[in-house]
């Protein structure tokens, strides 16, 4: 079935609730539904197995229009169907929850309600997930009329204190992991209720690294935003600019030269190697196998050096510019990259052997956190986590973009769905990446590196999807025809994969929990990007002395 037929099928499925249908782009279908019909429409698409829910975008259409817009994006291969719901800005903007139909929707819904101000009815939990605890109620940072003065911190809105009687209640007690914890090098907070060693409940809180990037994007121009979005993530910075640049180029109807696209793909491939080797080290450390951790990070230096050689940077490469790339790959560099890949391939094969044969390591990975194909589909998993369960979720294969249209790759899958399979999938994927990079270097198309981009991007909206090391990265970009974007919504792959951790931790041993968290390769800075405004007169800024005195007083009690 091709894309057009697919979209027509979606239209036919949604015919009962359809208020207005548009085809904004060749691969997209927009269907307007009312809030009352939303659940039925989602259920229909879900039951018909038409794709998966990729993201929910919340938008404020502006004070004049008086409307909020919620967009439910369903992806099926290259075809995207968007359910649009319009609600009034003032008054009742309530939407029914769909988390009982699609579990991962809870994260999208909570993000949308915290930042744009939709009321989600019927949800199990509406605890704050992203926005900081002292943020005032009823103030939504992504509203068009939001002013920074509104965001003055509220004292004592939520205090996480230890109850007087201690922490043990009956046989169970809560083990907090994060936001500062040796297992998590990044800030996230999990509360695992344990009975002895067995986890009986799990809860999480994100948002400790919120930097308000989506808000910041609204006040920067298109070129500045490229560098802003590069900083969403420190590990997969290149794919963020790739998704952003691809979206903006699509809106401007600019065709990027093939050579530039190939170079983008080479950098993305090297970035994937660096990201997965980093993950392997972290996973090994969580399992208590520090030797593998040290070795994989040592070998990761090779790929870091290659990236530095191509782009001049080790972390935020800024290889992309709007309309192309800024760095070329010459013959000499091609030779160095190939030598580096020769070394890496040998090492990757070795690690593949270690993770599949080392009996002690298998003790901690085989059969742990098994996710079946059906569950993977139900949780809406993405990337290597989904592929380890046999579910092909890979934008490079499903909806090839950029250089992948000319140099296709194959998706790597495994069937077991446990941690071992996830290690295997990631490492095998690196071998595929190495092969793909070689092919691209050998067949690097000739041509210019950039084309001219307009300063102002024509009005319109588009969706840009690329495959990040952790899974599908989703960008929704809306332009009003000016120098700044109206709204950019980023949905990172980690966000979709959390459900698997929370569901799978229950019933497992506490010792498996860090492995489960690491198993999906979470990236916290990716999750947390929406909002925190710098408080100008923040009473909570303490000197070191004050903090120390507070600490001493606290423990005297």
């Amino acid at each position, binding site marked *: 079935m091709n894309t057009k037929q697919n979209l027509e099928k979606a239209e036919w499925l949604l015919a009962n609730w359809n208020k207005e249908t548009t085809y904004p782009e060749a691969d997209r279908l927009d269907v307007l539904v009312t809030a009352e019909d939303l659940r039925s429409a989602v259920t229909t698409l879900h039951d018909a197995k038409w794709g998966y829910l990729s993201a929910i975008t919340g938008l404020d259409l502006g004070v004049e229009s008086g409307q909020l817009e919620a967009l439910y994006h369903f992806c099926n291969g290259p075809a995207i169907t968007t359910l649009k719901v319009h609600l009034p800005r003032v008054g009742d903007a309530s939407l029914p929850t769909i988390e009982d139909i699609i579990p991962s929707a809870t994260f999208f819904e909570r993000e949308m309600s915290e930042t744009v101000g939709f009321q989600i009815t019927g949800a199990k939990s509406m605890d704050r997930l992203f926005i900081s605890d002292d943020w005032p109620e009823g103030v939504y940072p992504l509203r068009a009329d939001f002013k920074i003065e509104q965001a003055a911190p509220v004292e004592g809105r939520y205090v996480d204190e230890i109850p007087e009687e201690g922490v043990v209640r009956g046989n169970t007690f809560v083990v907090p992991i994060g936001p500062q914890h040796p297992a998590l090098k990044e800030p996230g907070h999990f509360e695992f209720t344990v009975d002895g060693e067995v986890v009986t409940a799990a809860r999480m809180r994100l948002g400790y690294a919120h930097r308000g990037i989506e808000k910041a994007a609204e006040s920067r121009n298109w070129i500045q935003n490229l560098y802003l979005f590069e900083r969403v993530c420190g590990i997969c910075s290149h794919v963020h600019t790739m998704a952003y640049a691809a979206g903006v180029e699509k809106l401007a109807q600019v065709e990027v030269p093939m050579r530039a696209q190939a170079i983008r793909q080479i950098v993305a491939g090297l970035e994937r190697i660096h990201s997965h080797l980093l993950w392997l080290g972290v996973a090994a450390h969580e399992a208590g196998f520090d030797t593998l951790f040290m070795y994989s990070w040592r070998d990761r230096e090779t790929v870091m050096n290659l990236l530095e050689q191509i782009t001049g940077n080790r972390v935020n490469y800024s290889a992309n510019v709007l309309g192309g790339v800024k760095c070329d790959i010459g013959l000499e560099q091609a030779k160095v990259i190939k030598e580096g890949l020769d070394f890496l391939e040998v090492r990757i094969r070795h690690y593949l052997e270690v993770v599949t044969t080392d009996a002690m390591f298998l*003790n901690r990975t085989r059969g742990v956190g098994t996710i079946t194909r059906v569950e993977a589909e139900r949780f809406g998993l993405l990337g290597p986590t989904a592929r380890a369960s046999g579910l092909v979720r890979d934008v490079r294969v499903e909806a090839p973009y950029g250089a992948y249209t000319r140099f296709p790759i194959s998706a790597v899958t495994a069937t077991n769905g446990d941690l071992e399979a996830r290690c295997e999938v990631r490492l095998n994927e690196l071998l595929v990446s190495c092969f793909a990079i070689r092919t691209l270097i050998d067949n690097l198309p000739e041509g210019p590196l950039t084309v001219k981009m307009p300063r102002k991007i024509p009005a319109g909206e588009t969706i840009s999807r690329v495959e990040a090391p952790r899974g599908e990265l989703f960008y929704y970009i809306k332009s009003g025809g000016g120098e700044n974007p109206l709204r950019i919504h980023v949905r990172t792959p980690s966000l979709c994969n959390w459900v698997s951790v929370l569901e799978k931790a229950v019933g497992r041993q506490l010792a498996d929990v860090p492995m489960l968290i690491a198993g999906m390769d979470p990236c916290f800075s990716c999750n947390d990007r929406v909002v925190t405004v710098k408080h100008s007169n923040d009473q909570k800024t303490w000197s070191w002395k004050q903090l120390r005195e507070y600490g001493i007083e606290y423990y005297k009690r």
Partner: protein
Amino acid sequence: MNTFTSFVSILIFPAGLTLVFTGMFYEWIDRKLVARFQNRVGPRWFQPFADMVKLFAKEQITPGLANPFLFFGLPVVAIAGALTSALYVPLMGLNPVHSFPGDLIVAIYLLSLLTMCIGLAGWNTSGRFSLVGATRALTQMFAYEAPFLLALLGPALAAGSWQISEVNRFAQTHWIIITQPVGFIVALIGLMGKLELPPFDSPEAETEIVAGALTEYSGRGLAIFKIGKSIELIVGITLVSAFYLGGLNGVLPFLLKTIVVLLLMTVLQTLLTRLRIDQTVGLWWRFGTILVLAQIMLIVFLRSYPL
């Protein structure tokens, strides 16, 4: 033995200060070797000593929910136990300071005191990580203690005495590792469990429960526990090498044999992934204990009915 020499032997040589510094030196060897095996640079030779100086200089914070008496007392009891156990083993290849029939049991009991104190300390501070750590430390103790003791009883049975110095003398003419290889392996791995070294470090698995039972300890208390650990390392290694590796009859054999045992332990630490606590217990009761019991039965049988 007069009071003066007793004091010297307990406080300065061979136990006491000498033991503390040797313990730190062995801890450094352990850390350095593991680091080199893992392709890291590793600490400088005085690092464990510098750590201790730093910890002693630091403020000690008592958690509000802890009993202060126990909080200060437990590290002292732990180190006292470890130091006392050192009196019964042939440190530096010299004769033990004290010796009486059955001191093997006393030495092992005193070594366990450290783990018990760590468990109690974790329970006393009632932090969440400490509680999980304490539970794991005590669970693990029940797992390795019996096989470790049985593994040391093997040579004792062969020597016909439960006195450490007697076994040491017997071992100087018999390399027991050749006749009881299973016992040696169990004793070595049991020692790693006792010291909570990887792969048996789940009681202090940093990725799950921070520092386990000792999470709330800082400053002096932590330093004393750490010193206790390094003393336990020396005493344990001395026992295993005296019993299995041809006895210890001088400083040079002592250094050589104990460092060989330490080297084996570091290689195992490097190669193995941490076990979950249930896997640790399973390993000991399903394999360790049964193997070593079988060996002891064999020894008893052979002693009763010589071939």
